[in-house]
């Protein structure tokens, strides 16, 4: 554990905060992180309270649970309720509300919904239950999509025909582009996602610097990683540079994981468009199975309603995901919408901005209020 002592170095944190404060002394800077893990770290460790008021963090759409629109949950529930189906899902998705309920509710009403850790566990359920059809609810960015792809290849190799996937995989670059196109959102740079980047590498982000003139720094998940990334962003701004930098070289390489990318490309193709919760339709932002894998595509095998469902009026997840409002500024935050009874997706996942803020941020804010009002 000797490495950890060195890493959790309070003196290093203090030095970084001092550097950030100095670099940000002449303006107001707004940076967005697009990774649920970062959002969690930022709230858990109260990083916003360490920062000078001139540095503002905006929590972008980096949690795949939070960006799934209600209509897709309704579709998942419809598939799960089909006789003969065993519906498998990551635990994170069970409580996400659709327009009439969640997968957890469907399970309580008799649907055979099972939580799995891996798509390979779902495939095993199919092998063990040859007289049933097993559907895997595939969600996530490029972090989890290669695993789904490898599982589909394995299903084909082992000729497992009672297995299919309901793909809701999304890709990280299109929402970044969509956010950069929002007219009202002035960002000064991005804290880039860590684990997604182990797969896709650094190259796909170059357009952020080259076409939009914004600095981009990929970061790890430690509080010190986040602080260092912010210091690197501010350094770029102060030196009048903008480029893609990598704070997380411990895990992320320039090229990513070429084999994972190759398998992704073999199994998936881009959908023309996909609905993102709160962000609307984003072109070429999600993955569906290629035609040669139709037999494992749950969307073709089952009648899904496929209806776009508007978010509940009271819910402002969209504004939160765009960084237009802070979680606590939502009308239903912490009252009608809590982690126990979520209205919006941001309150469901522990990596969602609202749940993270609800769990870890309120005390910090109450302190801030008593010291002179919310920041």
């Amino acid at each position, binding site marked *: *554990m000797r*490495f*950890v002592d060195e*890493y*959790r170095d309070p003196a290093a944190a203090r030095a970084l905060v001092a550097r950030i404060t100095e670099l940000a002394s002449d303006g107001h800077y707004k940076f967005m992180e697009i990774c*649920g*893990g970062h959002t*969690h*770290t930022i709230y*858990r*460790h109260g990083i916003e309270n360490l920062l000078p008021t001139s540095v503002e963090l905006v929590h972008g759409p980096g*949690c*795949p*649970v939070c960006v799934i629109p209600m209509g897709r949950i309704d579709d998942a529930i419809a598939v799960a309720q089909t006789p003969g189906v065993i519906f498998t899902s*990551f*635990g*994170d998705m069970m409580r996400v509300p659709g327009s009439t309920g969640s997968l957890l509710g469907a399970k309580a009403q008799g649907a055979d919904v099972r*939580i*799995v*850790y*891996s*798509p*390979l*566990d779902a495939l*095993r359920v199919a092998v063990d239950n040859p007289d049933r059809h097993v559907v895997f609810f595939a*969600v*996530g*960015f490029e*972090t*989890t999509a*290669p*695993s789904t792809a*490898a599982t589909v290849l394995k299903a084909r190799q082992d000729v497992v025909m009672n297995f299919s996937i309901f793909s809701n995989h999304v890709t990280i670059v299109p929402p970044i582009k969509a956010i950069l196109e929002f007219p009202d959102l002035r960002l000064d740079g991005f804290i880039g996602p860590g*684990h997604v980047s*182990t*797969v896709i590498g650094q190259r796909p982000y170059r357009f952020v610097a080259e076409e939009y003139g914004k600095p981009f720094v990929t970061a790890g*998940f*430690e509080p010190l990683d986040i602080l260092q990334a912010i210091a690197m962003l501010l350094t770029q701004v102060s030196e009048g540079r903008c480029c893609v930098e990598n704070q997380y070289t*411990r*895990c992320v390489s320039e090229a990513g*994981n*070429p*084999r*994972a990318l190759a*398998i992704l490309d073999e199994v998936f193709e881009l959908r023309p468009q996909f609905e993102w919760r709160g962000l609307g339709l984003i072109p070429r932002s999600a993955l569906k199975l290629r035609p040669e894998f139709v037999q494992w595509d749950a969307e073709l095998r089952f009648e899904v309603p496929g209806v776009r469902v508007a978010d509940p009026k009271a819910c402002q997840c969209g504004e939160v995901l765009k960084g237009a409002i802070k979680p606590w500024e939502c009308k239903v935050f912490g009252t009608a919408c809590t982690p126990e009874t979520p209205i919006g997706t941001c309150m469901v996942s*522990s*990596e969602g901005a609202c749940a993270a803020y609800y769990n870890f941020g309120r005390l910090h804010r109450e302190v801030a209020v008593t010291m002179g009002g919310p920041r």
Partner: protein
Amino acid sequence: MCLGIPGEVVELFDSNRHLAKVDVAGVRRNINIDLLEDENVAPGDWVLIHVGFAMAKIDEREAQRALEGLQLMGQAYTDEVRAVIESQIA
């Protein structure tokens, strides 16, 4: 789902099926190493595991850092490790 959990490779036991035994938080489980085929994963290596697949080779120092960081996450980490332990990849 999004949390990468570090594990130490203990044994490569089925190269056709790309399976390896790893030690995750003191418990041994099977994972798939197909996505790291080009990296010559060997016993003693540390890997970052996402939903049953090794996604990146990392050094021991990073593995310890990551574990320490994850433990600080509390419930989210406990849930993920429990999920890994309940997994029955074969």
